[in-house]
């Protein structure tokens, strides 16, 4: 079953991540045509806590409904992937931390939306280091004449057309 999500649905996935440690989530399919790269800088946490970063990908329609496409664990850099052309794609970066003492799990979600274009390339920088994280992206034009930042936009702020 392909889940259809709205508004807080992305967080429902983060909840799943917490509960299942991502093991039950679908892996984002490996497309032959790669138009995006994610460069990752992470540390594994400390003696008392463990950190990890994942990205959940969704296709968003005009009614702001998100269809889950799959997830990727962000650990090996660089990670090449293919984003579908012409659709609005939501990338939800999930930064999660588990503490061994007290058994706490927590996940923060940074979302960005973009509509990948033919001939363009998408470069993302993701980091999860000591007490800080971040996710940024740029769209690089054909022949690299232009670079445009990918907008940080949440599904909950999506306006139906």
């Amino acid at each position: 079953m392909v889940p259809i999500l709205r508004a807080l649905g992305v967080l429902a996935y983060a909840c799943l991540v917490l509960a299942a440690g991502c093991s039950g989530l679908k892996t984002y399919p490996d497309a032959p045509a790669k138009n995006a790269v994610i460069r990752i800088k992470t540390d594994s946490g400390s003696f008392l806590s463990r950190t990890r970063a994942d990205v959940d990908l969704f296709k968003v329609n005009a009614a702001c409904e998100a269809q889950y496409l799959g997830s990727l664990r962000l650990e090996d850099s660089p990670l090449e992937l293919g984003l579908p052309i012409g659709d609005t794609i939501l990338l939800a970066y999930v930064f999660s931390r588990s503490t061994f003492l007290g058994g706490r799990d927590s996940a923060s979600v940074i979302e960005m939306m973009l509509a990948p274009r033919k001939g363009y390339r998408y470069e993302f920088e993701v980091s999860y280091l000591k007490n800080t994280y971040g996710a940024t992206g740029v769209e690089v034009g054909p022949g690299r004449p232009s670079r445009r930042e990918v907008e940080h936009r949440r599904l909950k702020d999506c306006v139906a057309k």
Partner: protein
Amino acid sequence: MRGSALSLIFGATLYGCAALDSPMSANEFRDGVKGSSLGVVQTFDAKRPYAQVVETLRKKANECLAVSVVSEGSVYQGNMMVRERSLQIYKPTVNVTKDATELSLQVGNGKMNPVQKHPKDGYYMLVADATPSGRNSTKVTIYRGKWGKGKDIDEAIRGWANGDRLACPDLNS
């Protein structure tokens, strides 16, 4: 979870529990912080032009503070340990004019509180004001609670304003 909970409690109690009111605007939040022993007001000068500081604040607020956090932990209820899940939805708002910029941050849990009057997008947890103070300097004042995630966000805003540390604060508990 603990840090955000402290921020929520701070937002909710700024005006006193008896009144069952929390600050409904950034202005009310500033006034509340100034008059509270639980509040912190700090001012510093960033050695960068106002336009650059504002651009960085706008960009980083959108990247780092428009964040949703879900937490889960074990808590005791009586003598039983149960798993408790909580959600915080952060909502930054940046208002820019030629002479002043206001960055306000609200945090809510996506639910309505039927008892206490509170802002639609959640309790105010921090307000930062930036104003030009010279050709190459900008005065920044941050209003926040003494405890909780406000302190981490305060430090991040300092880094963004100074342009020397651009990372997002970890809002996980």
